[in-house]
């Protein structure tokens, strides 16, 4: 599927995001996608 501009500020490092979520006391929204 052709990528479309997104306003979501995606991050790509699983461990770093979990640490950030812990620090900010937020959940993680994980989206596994296929670019094809």
């Amino acid at each position: 599927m052709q990528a479309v501009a997104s306003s979501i500020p995606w991050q790509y490092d699983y461990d770093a995001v979990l640490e950030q979520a812990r620090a900010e006391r937020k959940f993680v929204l994980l989206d596994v996608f296929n670019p094809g």
Partner: protein
Amino acid sequence: MTYPQAWVAQAIAQYAIPLQIDNSKSENNQLLHRIHHIWTPDVRILHYDGFELYRWDGFLPPSEFAARLECAVGMAYLRLKRFDEAEKAYVDVLRRFSTSYAAPEAQYYLGVVRYRRDPDSDELLTQWAQLRGRYPASEYRVKQSFKELPD
């Protein structure tokens, strides 16, 4: 998963850090194997300890995605026994997305939240009566149908 609408990004940012994993990149294989990934889009709400609190597969258009996200947040808070926050999320789904596919689930679990917070209240049966009236053909109506059986 891409949504150009700013309000979708705002809805996500309110509750979560967005993490995207490309399943075509080999460096992600170990993670994908560990989480038993099978289809895309594969959307999950994780606690910051890595525990999966809610998940769903497949595309949803923006309004259905937003409703499902709010339901997911409700379930995440419920599993963490943060009942007030869970209630707020489910009430929000019913107020803003009452015709969405997520709405019957929100109606069902609104009763569960209120019952878990106060087992002496009548709210479980009250909310499930609302479920029967508003979403009679839903799977969640079936889930509470044992309450409709004669004693």
